[in-house]
């Protein structure tokens, strides 16, 4: 997989390049927006990892350029030193697939890259049974089990859970989740979604101690995160 990387900070660019190359990706670094765009005219990449702020182009401007000129459009990951919620929402709304807040932790970077790539270039569907770690989804029967235990769920809860797992690490906007679950129904209070999220979090135990985190992206929606491998966490704890 080929990844194009844009960051005006040489150290950060070198760090990211090192992590991604180590993980086996074909990574190319750019320090200026226009250099990246010139490359994109002639070359195809599988993923763009963009810094929000480079001196000659803003992240938004590059996303807009990509939306207009690249077909098929490569998935985009934003990395930003900003922590303000509205900046992240602006990026997601413009068309970014996910974001990372600097300083970047290598495990998180790799998990996000992997998730974005898998979503964008999916493996052909299997026999209707999907596995995510210990979770098993039987799509045709609308059943989910953790390990060997079947977890009782309503149809909506199952759909929501599957949606979140299929879009692991991807921030899903409230509007998107709403439409997928209930269609275009303006009468439902937006709190309904919060209640459902709360229920599946409890039922599926989507908590850090179980390796997952169902986190809100404020003013935007929700994201299901898979924390670093359990082994890694255990290692960290030991260290």
């Amino acid at each position, binding site marked *: 997989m080929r990844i194009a990387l844009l960051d005006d900070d040489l150290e950060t660019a070198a760090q*990211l390049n090192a992590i991604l190359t180590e993980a086996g990706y074909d990574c190319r670094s750019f320090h200026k927006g226009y250099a990246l765009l010139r490359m994109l005219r002639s070359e195809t990449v599988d993923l763009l990892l963009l810094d929000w702020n480079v001196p000659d182009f803003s992240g938004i401007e590059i996303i807009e350029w990509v939306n207009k000129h690249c077909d098929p459009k490569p998935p985009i990951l934003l990395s930003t030193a900003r*922590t*303000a919620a509205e900046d992240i929402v602006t990026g997601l709304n413009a068309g970014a697939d996910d974001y990372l807040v600097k300083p970047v932790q290598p495990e998180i970077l790799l998990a996000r890259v992997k998730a974005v790539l898998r979503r964008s270039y999916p493996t052909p569907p299997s026999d209707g049974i999907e596995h995510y770690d210990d979770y098993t989804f039987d799509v045709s029967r609308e059943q989910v089990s953790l390990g060997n235990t079947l977890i009782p769920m309503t149809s909506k809860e199952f759909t929501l859970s599957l949606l979140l797992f299929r879009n692991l690490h991807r921030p899903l906007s409230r509007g998107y989740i709403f439409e997928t679950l209930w269609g275009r129904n303006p009468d439902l209070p937006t709190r309904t979604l919060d209640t459902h999220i*709360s229920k599946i979090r409890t039922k599926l135990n989507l908590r*850090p*101690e179980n390796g997952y985190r169902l986190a*809100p992206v404020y*003013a935007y929606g929700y994201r299901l995160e898979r924390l670093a491998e359990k082994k890694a966490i255990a290692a*960290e704890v030991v260290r």
Partner: protein
Amino acid sequence: MNDVFDSLNTEHTARIETELKNTLVFEWSLLALAATLAVVVISWAGMTSQLDLFFYDTVVRLGCHKPDPSVLIVKIDDNALKTIAPWPWSPDKHAKFIKQLDAGHPLEIGYNVLFLDPSESQATENLSKTLKASKTPIFLPMLVESGNHNKKTVAVLPLLAPSATNVGHVSVPFDRDGMVRRYWPALTAKGRYWPALVELMDNPKKVYSEADLREKLFSFDGPRNRFPVISAAAIWRNEVPPEFLTGKRILVGVTASGFEYLHPTPFGVMSGVEIQANILDTLLHDRTIHEASDITKLIVALVSLWILLIGFRFLSPRATILLTVTLGVGVPLLCAALFLFFNYWFPPITSVVGVAFTYPFWAWSRLASLSKYFSDELEKLLSDFPEEQRQKLPDITATDPLEYKKQLLKLAISRIVFMRRFIADSLYYLPDVFFVTDKDNNIVLLNKAAENLTAELGAQYHYRMPISTILNHLHNEEGHRIDFDQVRNNEINSQCYAENGRAFDLRIAACRRVINQPDGWLIMLIDISAVKSAEEQRQRILHLLSHDMRSPQISILALIDRFSRTSCSKEKEAQEIITKISNYARRTLGLADNFTRLAQAEAPEYQWMDVEIEGVMTSAVDELWIQANKRQIKITLNDWEEPLFVEGDPALLERVFINLIDNAVKYSPDESTVSCTVKKKEDQVEIAICDQGIGMDQEQIEALFRPFRRASTGPAAKISGIGLGLVFVNKVILRHHGHIDCRSTPGKGTCFIVTLPLLVDPE
């Protein structure tokens, strides 16, 4: 602007009028009672009768009649006494004279000569025969002694009474002023009615009753000598042709000096015979005057008085004067007209007096009450003044009430002038720019700051200049010119900027006297340049902290990460240094983050939305799981039944709980538990975060929420962190209308309890 004050004035004047009217009700009632009583007393006591008689005489003199041509006076004057005989005549002379008269065939003779002397019986007999033989009816007078009205009347009949056609009295009553204006149609004596002589001459067959005993007004034909008069001497000497006497009603009377009866009348002194002639003429032409009764007089007087009194209550002062004059003149005029055209008399003076005296009293009481009202109002006005201003003005020294009022007024005026100037000056030197426009948006008033601004913007001020001329020099945030109509209609406060960079808060208020109809506009421009630049400064610092300060730290961390992947990092010494550098870089990063968050917490605008507590709490707990897990610290979150919603900014709220839990984790010993408890308490939610750490004493708790302060003594001192975190927490909680409490026992642990108001469920 004048319209504004006009309407206010009218309102005020109307209020004064009403108050004045109310205070006058008492005075009016008193006056009405007093005047009514006075009129009744005056009328009953006849106090005005003299004036009434005077008025009567005046009116009588206006109406003269042509005497009846049949009435003829034959006077026995000085000439007759010289020619015939000295007075008294012997009966023979009378007999001869009567014969001479009879020869002329007059209609009737009233021989107003008393025959009382009982002597000369032969001659008297002779006269008696002559009387009986006369073809003309002859009426003789009788003497009425002590004619104290008709009660004790004694009639002394003439000796010749049986020979005469009839006998009547010739007495007349005298009014209080001694004048003759009336006559008695009849008197009683010896059990029968004795009619007046002239009544007999008018109608000998008339039947008399009790009513005829009352005196009646007769009318005068005019001044003296209106009737034709012939001297007895002329008849004696046969100088008058007998035809001259034919068909006449002859009244014979003595007018010779020394024997004449003279009476004062409205037309001056008249002889008795002339008065009888006037009475006769009155009777012949039915000109007897009907006189109003006392009750009628009183009623008329009271009616005219009450017309005036009612007029006082409801008419304007000008109309009241007119009414008074109308009544004062109209009633006498009406009397005169009734007298002259209908022979009806009622005395008007009681009415006139009642009206004429009531008006000045009323005018005086009105003035008095107005004056009192003015004094009261002035005193009220003066006492309303602030104490410090009262001292600047001179005190009132006058003791004379009028002088006192004058000084009071002077003082009030000077205070109002002072006040007006004070307000005008205050407005003028108001530091903010202030314009007043009329309803057509033209400037009618502006203060010093506004004048300066006008000059600064390069505009030339002139009276009634459109406000848009000023506002056109200003632009809003989008760079558009300020359109006064647009901002005015919304009445919104908006920010605007001048070319030279000054920023203003534009405030507009309508000046409304009448609802929905603005009379003008108040426009205020508050200079917010300093506030604006402070805001920009804040934004710049925020940017610096969030990006410019973070970036180098991120670069350091990236460098360390890359270095740790190389073989050099395997050496133990290098490993230690790298870990230390990494920690310092992370701390600096945390510092920048804390500053950024505090700035966000203090930002003027929050993104308010419905926030579900469970989501926020779970997220906060999950955020700290890794950190806590490293030290085997368990973070627990209780279960509760229903979803709890508050209104707030979810990102900031989550950060609040992250900070609190982070704090709890930091100050907890390894392998302990941090418990988060969410509880619903009526319309609030209480969130407690408790650790099993080292705890704090009261002094430490009090110092907690001050910036740049953290537990600095005891074992807590070695924990990394900065007091900014709690300042942020406090700020955000306050902005969410909640509060935070801290309970701690040294050695046992600390609890932070956050209380937030629950959102009222809209469903």
